[in-house]
């Protein structure tokens, strides 16, 4: 996952960004909306991959932090008279707080135990949201959230999502390549040795969870901008599984793989859904084939194929 900074990558990234700036001018409205949705979902998947791929932790209930981010913005707009923009600033902090609390409880456990405890705790949060009718709107959710005019149109939502996602990706890329990112990977590859050389494993893992939570919260707030609705399903465990799929599908040992995975899932469900109601079966078959033949994910496959410089060192023995 570690990538040397290269001018080529920077140039390429900038080129893609500039290209994307022109999307709303040339594509129909629905495709613009889809792009925005892919950015938000992709950001969520990349944020999960910060702990899943980078840290090797079984973050089974990532959707909770996404939902909390979304609900924070929604409640800020509907229940307070403060500026809605404050909600967008608050969302990552609230998600980080929940991440910290859940992380503190879970981080003592490892692997599947960690994941299942997280599912239980996350489901408790979900149950509170689901039941607290007066505050969260209960299972009906909150709809018709009026985001600021600037970003309420399809195009506005698109540019906002694009800008925020790009910014978050840059920050996350920096984190991955920071000393923290390196120690996090060391912990993943060999926790005992890391412990021995003086890395505080639990603290590193907790920090990783909080960082992932922050960006999940940001992507939750993007969801509100794009859809104008929040509902408890945003923090239900099935969504968490879906995000894990996006990571594995795109390639969880690559930085942008989860983004690609998110794009594949969103497009598949939108366009196959037009022709058949059996799209989950098609998704299932596609997934099976990918696991059988492309175990490193789509992006991982291409990178392994076309890049010689040490990308594949990490995926052995686990």
């Amino acid at each position, binding site marked *: 996952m570690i990538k040397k900074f290269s001018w080529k990558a920077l140039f390429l990234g900038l080129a893609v960004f500039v290209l994307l700036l022109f999307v709303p001018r040339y594509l129909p409205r*629905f495709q613009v909306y889809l792009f925005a949705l892919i950015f938000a979902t992709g950001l969520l998947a990349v944020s999960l991959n910060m702990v899943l791929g980078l840290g090797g932790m079984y973050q089974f209930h990532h959707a909770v932090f996404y939902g909390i981010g979304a609900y924070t913005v929604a409640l800020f707009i509907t229940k307070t008279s403060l500026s809605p923009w404050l909600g967008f600033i608050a969302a990552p902090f609230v998600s980080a707080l929940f991440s910290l609390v859940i992380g503190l409880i879970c981080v003592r456990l490892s692997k599947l135990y960690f994941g299942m405890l997280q599912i239980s705790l996350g489901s408790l949060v979900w149950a509170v949201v689901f039941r607290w009718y007066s505050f969260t709107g*209960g299972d009906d959710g909150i709809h*018709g959230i009026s985001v600021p005019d600037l970003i309420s149109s399809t195009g506005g939502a698109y540019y906002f999502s694009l800008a925020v996602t790009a910014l978050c990706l840059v920050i996350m890329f920096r984190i991955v390549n920071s000393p923290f990112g390196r120690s996090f990977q060391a912990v993943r590859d060999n926790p005992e040795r890391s412990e021995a050389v003086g890395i505080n494993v639990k603290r590193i893992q907790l920090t990783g969870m909080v960082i992932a939570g922050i960006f999940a919260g940001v992507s939750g707030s993007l969801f509100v901008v794009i859809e104008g609705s929040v509902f408890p399903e945003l923090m239900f465990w099935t969504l968490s599984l879906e995000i894990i799929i996006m990571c594995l599908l795109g390639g969880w040992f690559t930085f942008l793989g989860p983004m690609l995975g998110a794009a594949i899932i969103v497009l598949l469900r939108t366009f196959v859904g037009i022709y058949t109601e059996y799209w989950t079966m098609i998704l299932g078959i596609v997934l099976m084939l990918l696991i059988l033949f492309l175990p490193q994910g789509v992006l991982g496959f291409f990178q392994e194929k076309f890049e010689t410089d040490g990308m594949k060192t990490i995926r052995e023995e686990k």
Partner: protein
Amino acid sequence: MKKRMWLPVCMTMVLSFLLTGTAAQAGNTIKVGIVDTYTGPASTYTNDVRDAFKLATDKINAKGGILGKKIEFVTRDDKFKVDIGLSAAKELIMRENVDILMGTINSGLTLAISDLCEKEKIPFLVTFAKSEKITGEKGNRYVFSMNENTAMAGKAGAAGLAKKPYKKYWISGDDYEYGHAIADSVWNHLKTLRPDVELLGQSWWKVGEPDFTPYITAMLSAKPDAVIIATGGAGCVPFLKASAATGFNKSVPFYMHTATEMSTLAPLGLNAPEGVLGTSNYFYYFPDTPENKAFVKDFKDAYGRYPKVGALYGYITANFIAKAYEKAGEINTEKFINALEGMSIGSPIGELTVRAFDHQVMFPMFMGTTKKVEGYDYLIATDIVTIPGKDVMPSIEDIKKARGVK
């Protein structure tokens, strides 16, 4: 060759995906988009909506359509998920350019689409979601409800229960909006009709609870005179099953909205409990009128099964659409809405009217008790009492209050 290779490959893949079949051309048809749940337990209700809608539109099209245009419809499966359904609704509006949206059975999704339709100025005809917020608190100019809602069910249930001698009640139900809304509605109206009733307690189970035996014994230990069961959809069948297995229906009488519907009773066969009080909008065997018989025959000829309550909703929706456009005189959304407000049509259960104020179709409610009857493979509703639509509708004052307007 390195990286330059895969990026264009992926980009072209994505782009080709994105650009497939952009927007159907606005042809000589009226296009209706249906978003509904065709996967999962709820699909037992929604398939009938779609099939009866098709039956009605086929008939309308065979007669030459509306204003010379045929009705055409497309469906999208939302899997009972709000995000998928909302995305599908946007696709139908933005890409398929539908004139009208229809659906769904998921109340949360319906509220979300209703809000979307208000922004996009597309009429949205709700065909199964029962939240009273749809035409109540959250009602808007573009949303119409083509089915009954929790407020109406509650009022009907209360009217029936008020005539019974029971005083001490227990309330149980699905722990989500639908359950609580039905329970609150029944209880509030019952309290106004009979101030002497007393609530012993309540228990709520999670949606999709598989086994009700523990809840039943817990209720029995409180010794109520009667129980109000506020469960819907997939919960009805196992609850009736558990009450038959424990003899609950014999020891404590209970009322459950939709208990008498065919979707609930047919799977249970002859082992369903007798004497359960329930309300419903429609039975294929009631009312025993020529209109209903003709509809049942058409439906059975087309699909080989008897229509359930969803079929009524789908059927009248198609007919409302046709009549409203004809009255409007052109394919124009605002005129369509003006025409639909206050409109009446004939239906298998008699004349139905859209109340102009809140866009709610005024359904009569049929209250009956389950019983074994010769000639049926399953229990049916008997001693059916019809509570007319105007008596079960929430008052306009209540709706104004919920919306916070004077």
